């Protein structure tokens, strides 16, 4: 095949792909939708970890209660107590412990500043108090248990978001696990997060990476078993 013919074949393959209406639909989605879907995916893996540890998980709508017909995640970070929509959380029990998994809610740090945490494990009693008072959960020991920053990268992962999350968790109490989760692997981010006090990196996590999913679930499961 000549160089010109080779390029023509590749150009035709590109056009064939990008002219599909489904491809256009997915490529024109805004990044926010991708980010939220990725957070919901990490939430599901956390629920898997609870079950794997021998616990129970009941999806609960803040308005409708257990097993909501429509599972509504937050399209933007907000208050744990907000009931303007039937936002979902996972009501979990493991041995004698009861806790909840939330997506995209705000916590009050030790400094008093509010922080958005993508996926968080919160003590159930504390979360109930927050809902009944319309207050804010605290990011201190025994209240905020695990926290994950989730990022669906569209550009090359840099260290800036990792650095921001390091700052955020430094304003929290002693978490049982703090993790930085992304769809893409990144050597430099991995290197940045390699210091022992920094969040655990789970990079390149996606449904095509079975080993990555397994590592994530196993880590969360072990932390929960040790705690409960």
């Amino acid at each position, binding site marked *: 095949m000549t160089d010109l013919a080779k390029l023509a074949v590749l150009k035709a*393959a590109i056009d064939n792909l990008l002219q599909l209406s489904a491809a256009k639909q997915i490529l024109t989605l805004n990044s926010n939708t991708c980010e939220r879907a990725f957070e919901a995916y990490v939430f599901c893996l956390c629920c898997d970890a609870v079950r794997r540890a021998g616990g129970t998980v009941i999806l609960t709508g803040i308005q409708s209660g257990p097993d909501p017909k*429509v599972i509504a995640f937050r399209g933007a970070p907000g208050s744990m107590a907000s009931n303007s929509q039937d936002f979902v959380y996972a009501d979990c029990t493991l041995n004698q412990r009861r806790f909840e998994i939330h997506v995209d809610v705000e916590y009050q740090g030790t400094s008093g500043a509010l922080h958005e945490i993508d996926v968080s494990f919160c003590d159930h009693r504390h979360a109930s108090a927050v809902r009944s008072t319309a207050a804010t959960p605290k990011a201190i020991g025994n209240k905020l248990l695990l926290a994950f920053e989730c990022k669906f990268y569209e550009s090359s992962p840099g260290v800036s978001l990792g650095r921001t999350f390091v700052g955020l968790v430094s304003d929290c109490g002693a978490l049982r696990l703090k993790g930085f989760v992304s769809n893409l692997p990144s050597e430099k981010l991995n290197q940045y997060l390699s210091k022992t006090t920094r969040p655990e990196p789970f990079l390149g996590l996606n449904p095509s990476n079975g080993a990555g999913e397994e590592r994530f679930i196993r880590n969360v499961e072990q932390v929960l078993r040790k705690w409960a």
Partner: protein
Amino acid sequence: MNLTEDEAAELVEILIARLTEFNADDVAAGIEESRRMGVEESVREGSPRFERALSKADIREVGKTRRRPRTNSEMLRLVIDRLHQRLVVLPKIAQSLKEKLGGEIVWRVEPEFTSAARTQALQADVQDLLPSDLPQIMAAFQHLLELLGENYRTGASND
């Protein structure tokens, strides 16, 4: 298929032009951001520029990580990788959500914190990520990968 740097540049240009044509703004912006970030690499002490340094002490003092621009082949790998994330990985995430959660899955906002204009951008349905002709996308993407060959397999971009 072995591509020259010029051929890789031409394909990158075509891909970005197509993405821009149908307003895939966030994907195109992500690619441009990656281009801007370049590639971080370690500088080898034996390289000629180190020979010209004033002294061994000066050499020890300088940071050994630097940023260089991506080659056209690296840019093509990166664009293919980003298309893979959007066209293959994202629908798999949506499928995984449907399998694990069942039922109808949506994203909603608190109206009191969101303007009407912004609400549309923030609210979504999992079906938005699962268009009906998904198998055709997978087949067309796989075909493109096969034509490009081993050097352009997904996950090969240098991040």
